[in-house]
């Protein structure tokens, strides 16, 4: 009997610690599928963040390094600069990438570090129990914005792909979502594209993945997917924000 | 030989550190123990600069010169500040074009030389520091002329090798004035 669906090799056969309905699992799978399809697991070093995906080093089959909070792009820079022939990726959440690690994110992008950044945007700090993230949408209730995020008090969210696409060193920036089958397919294409960009030595790639956090949003998994569609996508429009490979193709 | 402690002082840009480096390299050429220590500050140009050089047959202890055996002063504030610190029996060399020397000390030897004027007269722009070194080797037996020339050759970067003859000339002017 033909096997039509199986666990990607680059994803290890261990139980995840993620909450029910959390979309980290989907993104892990997509990333692992890309490593499998490109046959690069053995040539890849991943860097995990601090946050919900802190233990991703136990889930991916490639060599992994656990970075301090926000510093994954700096750690990845150290790996890539001394091992330019290896594939290097970071996997970071919104607090890690766009708050405490903003400087590392922006500067690795502007240097054009030839790495892939997978950015999970779920508009909340998950691991610490649901506090405001740099991407928390105005009005969104969190533990530290109990009356809804008030921009007068807490400022406005950071739109990461838009910001990074202004930098010359950014080769490829795309925002995707994992709320539906078509979007998940697009997300995988984007991750593949990011690794191809690294393979072609084009520079910094970021794939921002709009994700859910049913536990800290206080929603069921299905309701959470609906919130992603109804509230997040309008605020964080999907699409390619920068693609230097396409620009070259158009010339 | 006991340790000879030398202090060079002036404005930034007068070549105080450079002259100190030449003395340090002279020590290296003569196989002496030595140290060279600059004062460093946030002002990169025009501020006061000074530099401690120790030359000895034995390992150097503190490289910071507080009471010099030899003072080379290139501006008035440096002269005024350090003249009282020179060890009894010490020697002071200063640019008499820029400095009006007034000190009540009779326990030290003072050697004025109009080094800025001499540099200008001989078209040796910025050569005042080297002229003072020429005076120094005439009045002390610290280094020979030959060592001094070798030291200069070491300090002048290869890209500016064309300046070496001018530095030799400045040494001779210092020795003859």
């Amino acid at each position, binding site marked *: 009997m033909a096997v039509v669906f199986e666990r990607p090799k680059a994803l290890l056969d261990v139980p995840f610690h993620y909450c029910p309905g959390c979309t980290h699992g989907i993104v892990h799978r997509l990333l692992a599928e890309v490593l499998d399809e490109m046959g690069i697991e*053995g040539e890849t070093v991943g860097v995990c963040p601090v946050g919900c995906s802190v233990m991703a080093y136990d889930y991916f089959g490639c060599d*992994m390094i656990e970075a301090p909070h926000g*510093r994954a792009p700096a750690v990845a*820079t150290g790996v890539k*600069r001394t*091992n330019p022939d290896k594939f290097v990726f970071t996997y970071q959440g919104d607090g890690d990438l766009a708050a405490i690690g903003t400087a590392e994110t922006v500067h690795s992008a502007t240097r054009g570090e030839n790495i892939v950044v997978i950015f999970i945007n779920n508009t909340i700090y998950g691991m610490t129990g649901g506090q405001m993230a740099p991407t928390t949408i105005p009005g969104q209730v969190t533990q530290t914005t109990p009356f809804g995020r008030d921009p007068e008090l807490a400022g406005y969210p950071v739109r990461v792909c838009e910001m990074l696409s202004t930098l010359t060193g950014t080769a490829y920036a795309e925002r995707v979502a994992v709320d539906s089958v078509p979007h998940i397919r697009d997300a995988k294409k984007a991750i593949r594209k990011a690794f191809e960009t690294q393979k072609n030595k084009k520079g910094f790639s970021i794939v921002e993945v709009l994700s859910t956090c049913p536990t800290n949003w206080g929603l069921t998994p299905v309701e959470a997917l609906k919130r992603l569609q109804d509230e997040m996508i309008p605020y964080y429009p999907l699409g390619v924000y920068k693609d230097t490979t396409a620009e070259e193709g158009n010339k | 030989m006991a340790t000879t402690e030398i202090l060079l002082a002036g404005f930034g840009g007068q070549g105080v550190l450079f002259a100190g480096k030449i003395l340090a390299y002279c020590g290296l050429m003569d196989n002496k123990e030595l140290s060279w220590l600059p004062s460093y500050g946030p002002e990169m140009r025009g501020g006061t600069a000074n530099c401690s050089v120790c030359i000895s047959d034995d390992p150097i202890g503190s490289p*910071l010169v507080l009471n010099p055996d030899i003072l080379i002063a290139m501006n008035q504030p440096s002269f005024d500040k350090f003249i009282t610190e020179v060890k009894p029996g010490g020697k002071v060399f200063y640019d008499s074009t820029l400095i009006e020397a007034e000190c009540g000390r009779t326990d030290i030897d003072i050697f004025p030389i109009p080094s800025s004027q001499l540099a200008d007269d001989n078209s040796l722009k910025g050569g005042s520091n080297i002229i003072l070194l020429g005076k120094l080797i005439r009045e002390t037996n610290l280094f020979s002329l030959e060592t001094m020339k070798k030291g200069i050759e070491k300090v002048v970067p290869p890209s500016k090798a064309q300046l070496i003859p001018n530095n030799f000339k400045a040494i001779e002017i210092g020795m003859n004035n």
Partner: protein
Amino acid sequence: MERNLMKGNEALAEAAIRAGCKCFFGYPITPQTELAAYMAKRMHKAGGVFLQAESEIAAINMVLGAASTGVRAMTSSSSPGLSLKSEGISYIAGSDVPAVIINVQRGGPGLGGIQPSQADYWQTTKALGHGDFHLLVFAPASVQEMVDMVVKAFDKADQYRMPAMILADGLLGQMMEPVSFPEINPDAHDKSGWAATGHKGQREHHIINSLYLKPDELEKSVTDRFARYDQIKENETDAELYLTEDCDILLCAFGATARVVKSAVNDARAQGIKAGLFRPKTLWPFPVKEINEAAKSAKKLLSVEMSMGQMIDDIKLAINCSKPVEFYGRTGGVIPTPAEVLAEIKKVGGAE
């Protein structure tokens, strides 16, 4: 061996390259800037990587990344920068990754000043970052030792898989002295058992990590590390003992201060005062055996530091407070003079 005349910062950088350092990540700060500038000029030619990071924090994490792949990696800074690097150094220690960190100390606290200081002794030997850990700390007192100790630091960091620090100061960094470069064979420690360089399908994946959520697992990782620290305390202490055999008063000083103190000891001896000098070359591990040997005949000890008195704590512990330990220090970037130290020797212990 050929004698060169070099600044401490530049000699250290050259020695690091010769010791097989393949990458340098730094951020400008006085008074260590020449080190980074030298690396910028030479590292590329030497086939390595120089990168000016956006911050001290990024620089130390680049070191973490590069060193995690088994490459000899280094960063340098001065006091305020070390406070920023402390997070990364804790992770490097907790991940058992070898790396070399340079601190060319300046006065503090806060922005402090830019003149020489030794006020980071506590920070470096007790708590350069959070958690239970140590780093090897070498304290050079000459430009030659800047060279010799950085070579040793890379070797020992690799041997014990831990961070090693050269604790210098602005005086050593800025001064020039004759220096010779020894023949260095970058010691080939085998790192293939742990380095994260891609498994090529030939082994289990390697994980460089400091996270252990189960207390018993974290405890074990820490106690295993401390077992290594015990070996280091046994085998890696180093100190210079100068005129200590018959001394009545034992002066204790490290780094540039030890040079000043040595001059004062010589002056004291010339005046018939039996003074000696104990100079630790390793600050962690502190040379406990060596100081007890040096203090055998001494009636009193005098710690001289460019701080308000930090090493004095370790001295008292090392001799079990068996003898009085006095202190003399200048701080804020002021360098003590031999005359001041001599006066202190006379005041404290010379009047036997």
